[in-house]
């Protein structure tokens, strides 16, 4: 493993269900890696195992077999508090359903990862305001999630995901619950964050439009990486067309 690899997955296998029950193998020996600063998309039909894969990477679930190394940590070897701390420090996560705590203001939601680390409140305030400026949500900080639109909520969630400068930002269909304008705004923001902060981004989606914002796309089929597409020097529209073409052949 070289130092500029952020995620490295080898032989990853996941089987749901106990041995004596009905079992289902969602991932069957997956291999891939993400370099530092890369913006990678993972595409696949519904039920192809995208969420399963992301859960393995973010330690929300444990693999049946194989290795996952994130930013130098062997995720499969971690236990208890190590897992919690890993999630709190190494990864930023954006969920389809926002995952914002409705009893906290936007500001408090964003500050949560820093509070967990025991960051001094001055430093915390500064970090929150910096990230809020980047995502243009400075005027929303005092509001509660119930007072925000879907797009605003997702931007707050993105702010929370990056406020502590994780090694990698992961999103599981973060645009899934957004209208097309909000979705586009969020994707532009992710692109900006990726470019400005050199933060690696791993975006899971089934939507070709979202995927076209990535530099590289991995296609999952039947629990394995079926094919891979690189954007190279193409602009987003051209890449979008290419993704559509690929899906056409991929799904046959």
């Amino acid at each position: 493993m070289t130092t500029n690899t952020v995620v490295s997955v080898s032989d990853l296998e996941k089987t749901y269900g106990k041995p004596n029950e009905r079992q289902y193998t969602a991932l069957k020996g997956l291999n891939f890696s993400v370099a530092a600063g890369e913006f990678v998309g993972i595409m696949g039909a519904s039920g192809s195992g995208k969420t399963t894969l992301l859960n393995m990477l973010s330690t929300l679930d444990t693999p049946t077999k194989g290795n996952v190394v994130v930013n130098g940590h062997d995720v499969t070897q971690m236990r208890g508090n190590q897992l919690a701390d890993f999630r709190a420090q190494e990864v930023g996560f954006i969920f389809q359903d926002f995952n914002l705590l409705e009893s906290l203001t936007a500001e408090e939601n964003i500050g949560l990862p820093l509070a967990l680390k025991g960051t001094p409140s001055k430093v915390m305030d500064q970090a929150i305001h910096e990230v809020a400026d980047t995502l243009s949500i400075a005027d929303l900080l005092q509001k509660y999630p119930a007072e925000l639109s879907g797009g605003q909520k997702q931007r707050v969630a993105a702010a929370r995901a990056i406020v502590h400068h994780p090694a990698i930002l992961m999103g599981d269909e973060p645009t899934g619950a957004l209208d097309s304008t909000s979705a586009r705004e969020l994707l532009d923001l992710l692109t900006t964050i990726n470019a400005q902060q050199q933060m690696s981004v791993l975006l899971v989606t089934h939507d070709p439009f979202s995927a076209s914002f990535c530099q590289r796309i991995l296609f999952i089929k039947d629990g394995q990486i079926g094919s891979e597409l690189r954007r190279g020097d193409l602009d987003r529209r051209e890449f979008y067309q290419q993704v559509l073409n690929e899906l056409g052949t991929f799904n046959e």
Partner: protein
Amino acid sequence: MLGKLALAGIKNRRRDYLVLLAGLTMSAAIFYMFANLATNRAFLNANAVVSSASVIFGFGAVLLILITVVYIMYANSFLLSMRQHDYGLFMMLGATRKRVGELVFLETLILGTIATAIGVVLGLLLSKFLVGFLLNALGLHLKHLTAFYLPAIVATVVLYVGLFILASLFNLVRLTRTTVLKLLHSDELANQPKVNPVWQLIQGVLGIGLLALGYWAMAAINDLQMAAIPLALVTITIGTYLLFRATILTIIRALRHTSWAKKRLNGFLLGQLNFRVHNYTRMLTIVSLLFAMALGAITVGSGYHRQLPLMAQRTGTYSVAVHDPNAHEQKLLDRLDSAYTATYTQKRQGKTVYYNAAELKRQPVEQRAYTKTGTAKHVSRQSFKAFQKSGIKDLDFLSLALTKAGSPYAPKILSAAQFKQQAGQTITVTTVRVKNLAQDLGTLKRLNQLEMARFSHPAEMTVGNYQSYTLMLGMFGGLEFIGYFLGIAFLAMLASCLMFKILSGAPGDQRRYRMLYKVGVRYHLMRHGIAKEIGILFLIPGIMGIIDVLFGLQMFKPLMPAPMSPYQGIGLTFLIFVGLYAIYYLITLALYWRIVLPKTTDA
């Protein structure tokens, strides 16, 4: 079709329904048990020697009804919160409001009727066993106490079914007035009350004022008579509520702006409390009242239980006198923890009982001194000379030889030689003064029974202070029983009230803690967070309840005449009660941890 859907919805949440049903059943059962006592005229007339006892019962009933109303409202809002999402969905799918309204009405009513029916049956059984057990444990015998009492059943059914009809109507109106969207998203709505400092201050001052008025009313029960209890009840309830509203919200808001709030999960804890503060103030008020009533009732009950023997012990000298003890009685006598034992030989002839001077010199008869106001002082032993003059006329000494009619023989003291010559029926009598009446009650009871069976004293004749004790028990035992009984009843109510809070909050919290888990919060942090939140819910009403009781015991001064006092020895009672409360907290906490904390295996 809609009925089927509704049924499926209920099936999905059968655990919640079971708890709801269990809570309501418990409440109906407790009410039945109480009504069984309160409406039973024969029982009251036979046992309530103190006239105010029946007044207490009357107000006890009113109080219990009030609590029941609040309780059912609380349970009903829990039911509604469980169901409104489903109902919103039905309406969105095109069901008419009228049809959904019918469903709501029926569902509430059916649930209520089932709870009432099971509750009455449970109440019957509990009356039979718990009341019996309690009487046994307290060494009480109360006449005319039966488990099955028709008027009590009627009262319970009328009250509960009536309340549930009201609750159904309330739900009907509530659901048909709210918009579908609100129903669907009821659990996500932001509830952020605005804080106006002036209004907060007014609330706080008003709350303290009302509390003071309530505390004063309880102390002034002699002047206010009947008016004191309802006055105290209303003012303390409203006062507590206002005080909580004024302070809790202000404290939370103030804490939220400190840097303490930005450490770990503190901010989350404050957010949670702030989010539910309206729910919480209501809950905390109810719980603090129930806590106060449970603790107060048990304190009074145990006050009688502890102080009656103490008081009895200060009447007369010896605890028990046994004539011609047989082998069995002698064994029992030996078992007593005696402070002073004496045995005298009597010779009875005509209307005179003769004593041996030698025996009286060897084992002087004890006397008890009294102050001018009649308060008992310590016991002492007179010189033989003094005894011949005064001690010989003491009722305690005279009572050692009673005729069948109950009048005493005239005592005469003879020298040892003369006594030997004296003719007459020879009887020995052994008097024992025990160190601690409460500890030897069991043995004394046995001895007294045997003595009564062998020599037919008139039953109401007091011989020894064990007999005084039984006499007092007849007077105050009813109150002691009511105290314990109500205490247990209120404690059970309190438990199920807190249970509802837990269950109605759990689904939302499950989601929230799942989010925290995903964000990478350590397990022990989440555990601590929950322990703090639930701890606050237990602590605040506990403190408030103890304050209420300390003032409220004033009310029992007329019922516990000196030398008894409602405050004597309350420390231990409080300690035991707080211990029980702490255990209940730990159980609740463990339960909540299990329900709310995410399992590591599923994502």
